[in-house]
């Protein structure tokens, strides 16, 4: 796979944007700023997905991450707001020694990962010596799609093929994923519920409820309402 022309230009723009936004996510003092920088990093990575020919994944990334997960994050930041004055005073990083140790670890990891990519990619090039192929066209797919003069724009049936193989080869994991999401919904509702909400839904063990009423008389009112 080799990008060229404007694709290469946009690749570098979005790659730099993704990395800078990720750095700012980690370094921003305010959690809301972190969330907004993370959104821009995710959108840049979605653009890289488009450049790699995965339009469907890019759409899913924007819909699920930016539209769903990040909104959830912003809601939780709003709910556990620690207050602006405390955010200004508290240190945002761990103690000096911990930060130093983890940064050393991270630099070692950078070296190791880059080394692995370097040697592994050379091995891969030996395994599949590639001529300069036209961008994004597999041999069996080329006949139906007219290449433009620059060779960069094209029509794909990529989404159709992803959907087809998702149901053909991964239908069992697909069903398991839906069960996983159901468990996650129920679990997060259970986790975030207060004792008051549990009492008004008549969902507490009676003995436990008696103990809690002894500690907090307001619960008794809620229980009588529900009955």
């Amino acid at each position, binding site marked *: 796979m080799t990008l060229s022309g404007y694709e290469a230009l946009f690749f570098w723009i979005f790659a730099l944007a993704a990395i800078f936004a*990720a750095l700012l996510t980690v370094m921003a003092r305010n959690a809301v700023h972190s969330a907004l920088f993370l959104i821009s990093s995710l959108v840049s990575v979605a653009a890289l997905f488009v450049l790699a020919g995965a339009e469907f*994944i890019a759409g899913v990334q924007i819909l699920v991450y930016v539209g769903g*997960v990040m909104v959830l994050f912003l809601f939780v*930041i709003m709910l556990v707001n620690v207050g602006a004055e405390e955010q200004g005073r508290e240190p945002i990083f761990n103690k000096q020694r911990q930060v130093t140790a*983890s940064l050393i670890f991270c630099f070692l990891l950078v070296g190791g990962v880059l080394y692995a990519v370097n040697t592994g990619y050379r091995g891969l090039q030996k395994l599949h010596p590639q001529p300069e192929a036209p961008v994004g066209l597999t041999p069996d797919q080329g006949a139906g799609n007219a290449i433009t003069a620059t060779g960069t724009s094209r029509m794909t049936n990529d989404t159709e093929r992803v959907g087809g193989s998702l149901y053909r080869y991964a239908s069992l994991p697909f069903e398991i994923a839906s069960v996983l999401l159901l468990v*996650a919904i129920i679990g997060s509702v259970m986790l975030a519920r207060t004792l008051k909400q549990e009492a008004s839904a008549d969902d507490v063990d009676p003995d436990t409820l008696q103990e809690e009423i002894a500690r907090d008389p307001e619960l008794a009112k809620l229980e009588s309402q529900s009955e």
Partner: protein
Amino acid sequence: MNMLNSFIPALAFLFQEVEGDRWAQMRHAAANPDLSKFLVIGALLFIIGVAGVLTRRNIIVIFMSIELILNAANLNFVAFSRYLQETGSVNALAGQIFTVFVIVVAAAEAAIGLGIVIALYRNKETIWVDEIDLLKW
């Protein structure tokens, strides 16, 4: 430069032994980003995420860093999927399908994790991870 390459093999990635003008070669490599460039971007995003998890005190920012890590893995999956498509592999789309599942698991993880954060904040009144030390002896 050769000596440097022998000591730090990771740097050889930037200064590969090439015939001809090195500057022109590097410009050609930059103008034609291939699989390895995607992998390097993914690795850098991964490292930034790891650094965030290890150094930050705010538990919500730690969760965001975990999302960064998963996203870097997704980038690698998609890049390899594209690479395999051009080698004509039959399993070329497996990377994209796996990415969908990673996104599903990330969404579930975020929902559960943020539920835990809310429950924790209700009981301990803090979001700083070094103050949540109930299990520490």
